[in-house]
């Protein structure tokens, strides 16, 4: 197992490098001069703009800029934000926990809804329970996130007053944003879980278990579910990218701090260092989480063989 993890980690390095190259390239393809933007409104003379470009190193050949960027990266230096003049690593460190917490709670809610609907759907196949469950979770995907969030605020915060409209302040504040995001993710979990479970339930060893006299719930929950969880777990890891997309919207609507809104502000302001920093951090998390998922996968299904 250790060897496996080690090998995967090393295998991830090219991906991380590829991402840095990709993001670096894209940013420099975007029309617009960051130095000009930073100095906008400051009455700077053209000479000052040129000076700033030089100071930021933007006038050097791309390859050298990239090399410098990677070198500093290896020392943990993500640069300084063009807008706020703070260190990018600091800014991300401040904003990251909020998004991470949101992501976690979202996945918990998504899994909760998805697994329940999936299990019920598989067991009571084709009945109205099945339709209800599938319908409910699919609704989460069909409703655009920003609208759903506003509706949730209207119902639960304004009319019922149960939960706050602003998504901060601990437990109560995170429920609505996470529910809005989580509902959307639950759909695919439901579908996968249900399909997997149906297939598993048709297997011979399940009938054997029934024949042995085990109760239905035990059969389903202990034996079948464990195998059905495999694709679900892998999926959660891969959805991380989508999670950030959803987080961008939800953080804006609920007024939460987080990487999503940080990224959007940075893109609009052409704040290269921050954009690069965010993308890298997200990619790193993505790689780590998927590694974790593969490990869990191997643990859940001993039949899987990693060549």
């Amino acid at each position: 197992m250790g060897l496996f993890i080690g090998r995967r980690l090393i295998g991830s390095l090219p991906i991380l490098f590829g991402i840095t190259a990709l993001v670096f390239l894209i940013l420099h393809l975007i029309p617009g001069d960051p130095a000009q933007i930073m100095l906008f409104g400051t009455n700077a003379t053209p000479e000052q703009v040129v000076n700033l470009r030089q100071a930021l190193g933007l006038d050097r050949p791309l390859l050298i800029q990239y090399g410098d960027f990677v070198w500093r990266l290896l020392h943990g230096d993500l640069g300084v934000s063009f807008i706020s003049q703070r260190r990018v690593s600091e800014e991300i460190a401040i904003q990251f926990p909020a998004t991470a917490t949101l992501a976690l709670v979202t996945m918990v809610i998504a899994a909760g809804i998805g697994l329940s609907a999936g299990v019920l759907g598989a067991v009571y196949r084709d009945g109205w329970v099945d339709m209800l469950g599938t319908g409910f979770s699919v609704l989460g995907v069909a409703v655009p996130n920003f609208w759903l969030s506003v509706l949730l605020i209207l119902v639960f915060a304004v009319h019922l007053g149960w939960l706050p409209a602003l998504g901060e302040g601990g437990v109560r504040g995170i429920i609505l944003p996470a529910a809005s995001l989580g509902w959307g993710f639950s759909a695919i979990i439901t579908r996968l879980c249900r399909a997997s479970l149906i297939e598993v339930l048709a297997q011979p060893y399940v009938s054997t278990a029934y024949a042995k006299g085990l109760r239905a719930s035990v059969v389903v929950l202990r034996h079948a579910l464990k195998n059905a969880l495999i694709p679900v777990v892998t999926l959660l890891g891969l959805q991380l990218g989508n999670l950030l997309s959803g987080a961008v919207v939800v953080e804006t609507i609920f007024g939460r701090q987080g990487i999503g809104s940080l990224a959007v502000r940075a893109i609009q302001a052409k704040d290269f260092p921050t954009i690069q920093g965010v993308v890298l951090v997200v990619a790193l998390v993505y790689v780590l989480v998927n590694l974790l998922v593969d490990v869990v996968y191997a643990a859940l299904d001993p039949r899987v063989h990693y060549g």
Partner: protein
Amino acid sequence: MKTRRVKRTLVAKALRPGERAGAVRLTRRGLLAGAAGLGSAALLGPLVRSAGTAPVARAATAPQGRVVFGMWQSPESLDPGTSGLISSGYISLNVFDPLIWHLPGMRQGQEYFPGLALRWEVSADAKQFTFHLRKDVKFHDGTPFTAQAVKDTLEHIVNPETKSRSAITALGPYSHTEVKADDVVTIVFKESNGAFLNNVATSGLAPISPTALKQYGNQGVSQHPVGTGPFKFQEWVPGSHVTIVANPDYNWAPVVAHHQGPPHLAEITYRIVPDASTRFNALKTGEVLVAENLAPTDVTALLHAPNFTVFTASVTGMPYAIMVNVKRPPTDDLKVRQALEFATNQEAIIEALYKGIYQPAHNIFLPGTLSYDPSLDKMYQYNPARAKSLLDEAGWKAGPGGTRQKDGQPLRLQFINIANFGFDQISQLLQAQWQDVGIQTDISAQSFPTVAETYNKGDHNLADFFYYSVDPFLMRALYACDQVAHGFNWMHYCDPQVDTLVSKGNATADPAKRIPFFRQAAKTAMEAAVVIPIYQQRAVFAASSRVQAVRFTVNGFPIFYDATLRA
């Protein structure tokens, strides 16, 4: 008591002109003005009692109450000398004190009132300004306030390392500062700077603690603002909120305030809520007690709600307007520009979007601004027939699909909006109005600050305009020839005569002498049809009725010094 609903309040100080560099207060949606029910929208008339009466004794009880203010944009810096954003301005206003206060209309015959400076003199050529300062003022970190602090602050602003976005423009052609004594300071300019008195009355040029400047450096003070104001900075959680708390030692409030001593409120939290509907909902749930920039329909709903107050304050400067690019065809033709002016129906736009809230604008200055000339309003009143004949004269004949054409080219304009600023609705209405006279408009959007570069390049025929200021000298920033390549002159308009007039207008500090120059400059600019005024903006805030006695500056920023929170 109708007047309780829409409170007008004390205008405490003019704001720095360059202030709007990144500013968007201009609205995300339209600020609203509950002029409905107000009748006489007196411009700067405060409800506050008038001159002469001495302010009340010091606050009787200890500061109490916490107000949460919902604002839409995250500040990028809390240093008034650096920042260009309104969000930052809201906060600085309560953490820093200006040298003087600009309150036209407050008292007969007096426009400026003492702040940290007790009295001041201006040289005849408006190049030297001497201030005699109070001796009993301390910064939040205990440093005594002296003339040296003023000098250090101004040097900080002009220092290129600071990258000041707005204060540096407000300061003007700065030469140096002379510390004559601990309580006497003279600021010297390279050229006449008649606008300076208006600008020094803003938080942009407010003194910063020299100790803080030394300790944190030019960049560091962005995160550690130390001023002399009624509130002091406590914390800034980026992306979330900024908290300021009452300054217990505060004892140098301006005479125009309602009380002396520490503020009534214990704490103010400026909460960042980017989404307008959430700001409104948070106001309804009580999570936010004051909210800015709400959608017009939402504000209208609150006008008649029992537990809410809508505060409005008129501002001076320029109205919200569309800038027309004079260098790019087809708007390089004066007749086409004039046709646009006549084809614009400001009243209909107000009726559709801002009914009862804003007034339509027909002038490049707002009423109440020095040198505002009401006769210019008549220059371009809605007259589609006139617009059509102008286009005919310019050679644009009726063409297919209702769009005119000339030499086989359709009459098409590129209208580039600033994304997410709330101007897109106006542009849609204009698009429809202009189509009626045969002009086709393509609307697209780019976000700020990227769009600023586009505007500077001149790829547009029409641009959003969001820069404004209190002093007519703002024409320097918007209409000057040297502001085309890198500044705010998005009309690419250059008329040396206008530039000269504007400089002359700034050569003296005497308002009476400045007026004729600015009037002439304004008339010339309007005749060139480079700007299409749309509405007179006002500052509009909605608040829980528990919040009382909020005052506003000439630019409509809220001051919480006298404010209280009812239980």
